[in-house]
């Protein structure tokens, strides 16, 4: 499958994420949109990695074995970190709900007072 499909898919996902962050006010949805952006980037990484893998192995017998696999490993790390981040983020949202009985981020624009 050509790389352009992956790029278009990832860009679309990313734009949906951005739009969601910009438009929505519910903290949980914003959070999900952030995850969406994160994962669209992950998708890009994996896709480019795959592309490099195939490019690196065509007609090149001396290519190192690990070519094009770094990013796939890297993505796992990102997912682990993202999981940790999600737990922290959800905890913050829970605390927020307990305090203001809402998950609307616009309630939290009073940092200045």
């Amino acid at each position, binding site marked *: 499958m050509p790389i352009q499909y992956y790029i278009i898919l990832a860009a679309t996902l990313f734009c949906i994420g*951005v739009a969601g*962050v*910009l438009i929505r006010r519910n903290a949980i949805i914003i959070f999900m949109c952030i995850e969406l952006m994160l994962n669209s980037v992950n998708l890009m990484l994996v896709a480019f990695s795959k592309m490099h893998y195939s490019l690196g192995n065509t007609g090149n017998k001396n290519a190192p074995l690990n070519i094009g696999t770094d990013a796939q490993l890297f993505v796992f790390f990102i997912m682990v970190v993202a999981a940790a981040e999600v737990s922290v983020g959800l905890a913050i949202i829970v605390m927020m709900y307990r305090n203001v009985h809402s998950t609307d981020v*616009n309630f*939290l*624009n*009073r*940092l200045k007072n």
Partner: protein
Amino acid sequence: MSLVYLVPLFPLIGFLINGLFRNSLSKTLTGLIGSGVILASFIVSVVLFLNVRSGGALPVEPLFQFINIPAFKIDFAFQVDQLSALFLLIITGVGFLIHVYSTSYMHEEEPAHFARYFSYLNLFVFSMLLLVLGANYVIMFIGWEGVGLCSYLLIGYWFKNDSYNYAAKKAFVMNRIGDLGFLLGIFWLIAKLGTANYNDVFANVSQLSPTDITGITVLLFIGAMGKSAQIPLYTWLPDAMAGPTPVSALIHAATMVTAGIYMVARSNVLYSASAVAENLVAIIGIATALFSATIAIKQNDIKKVLAYSTVSQLGYMFLGLGVGAYTGAVFHVMTHAFFKALLFLGAGSVIHAIHNQQDIRYMGGLKKYLPVTHITFLAGCIAISGIPPFSGFFSKDEILAAAYAKNPVYWVLGVIGAGMTAFYMFRLYATTFLGTFRGTEEQKHHLHESSVAITTPLLILAILSVIGGFVNVPEILGGEQGLHQFLAPVLKTENAEAVHELGGNKEFTLMAISVGVAVLAILIALSRYAKKPELDEPAGFGKVLAKKWYIDEIYDALVVNPLAYLGNFFKNVVEKSGIDGFVNGVGTFVQYSSRRLRLIQNGKVGTYILFMVFSILVLWCIFFYQEKIVIFFNNIF
């Protein structure tokens, strides 16, 4: 260190002591210090004069280097030769008498102001000595500016009176106009010759082109016009009467106004090399002499008459300089210093006696009450009118003879001016001293002869005015022309031969005519004003003269008001809406824009993210089209 440095040092010390300790010195002590330092200078000057007389000019020794740059060097050096030695005597001698006179005249002042007065007076003498002694034009310029400053300070001595301050400002500004010309002349000289030392300049005159010489001399003469009150820059001198009377005497006789004469006489080598400049000097001189004499005829302020007579006499001196009679001009400076100081101090004595009344219409008959002042004043009047054997006759006659040798028209005009001089002086004399007293009864009651400190200088100056002319008796009267021989090393004397060629008879005739005109004028004046003085306001042409030909008004209309208007325009329009508008505009713009921009910081996360996204987009675009943008900007710049 040579003796010459003591001459200006003494007045400087006097200035410092009187100026710094003015609050703690008693009046007696101030007067003693103020006069004493001038006396000390006078004694040193006499010693120097005798040295010069027996041994010629002293060598020029630099005290230190005033300006030292690769292009040229200016030494702080003094030059004592025949010319400056003579001026030293006049300045310190007459200056000393004026100081002594001042101790009595100014005695009613507060001690602090009394000391301030004497410190200014000392500084004045110091500046004038610097001017005369300097061995180059730059040192002369320092003194030149110094006397300008001191005249400002002294004319505005009674600074609580606004019109006096105005007169002081006027004197200062008028002088500045002339000083600019003088300064440009010096620059031109240094640019062409690389030096301002008199000796070097005069030795290298041949290196200058005729245009240079004419340009330099005319520019220097503009300086002299300001300082020596010649047309068109003369109007400050009559207004300078705002100062105390001894100051007028000092300005008119010993210092300040003679600076221009001294400068031209000092530069005689330059001036005699340029026919244009010589003619200009002569024409300006004779024009000023006649013009101010006409004004003097109708003035009623005793000091104003004397002031215009000074302007007129200065015109004679410049006529002398212009026709090449340098010695005659310097001689007239000397005799004029005697009789004009005498007349001013006499006028001061009169004013003092009748309690600050200066209008001669309210005087009259003072002969009886002020015998010493009367006799000395009369001597001064006769001297200035040019009646032999008083001093003014010899000096004026010498100038007139030289003028005749150059161009008879100058002589005719000069004789007319001399007649007017005699006329207005004796109008003044008759109105003031003859007839009956016209002041109030109270003033009459207080009339008294002035104290010894006032009458002694008057008597000394009167004696000098009478006999001062004998130092330079012309040959046809059996004299030896002593001053000519004395000044011969520094002044050109080519005109003396021209006068000599006139022949004894002709010279004698000229002399007789000018004396005859003067005597006639005196008789007319006495017969007209002795019995019934002119008390009414003048009408018709007399009014034009009394209003000084409306010259002040014309200057106001032509120069002062347009400049003031321009100044107001710049102040109110260009400054207010232009400069201020721009500066305030920048401030307002920053305030306004920051007030708007502040609203962006509204605390809403969404907005921040929106800006972030857009910024990233913009940065991404810039990055993407980097090359095109670079090319675009390269095209523009």
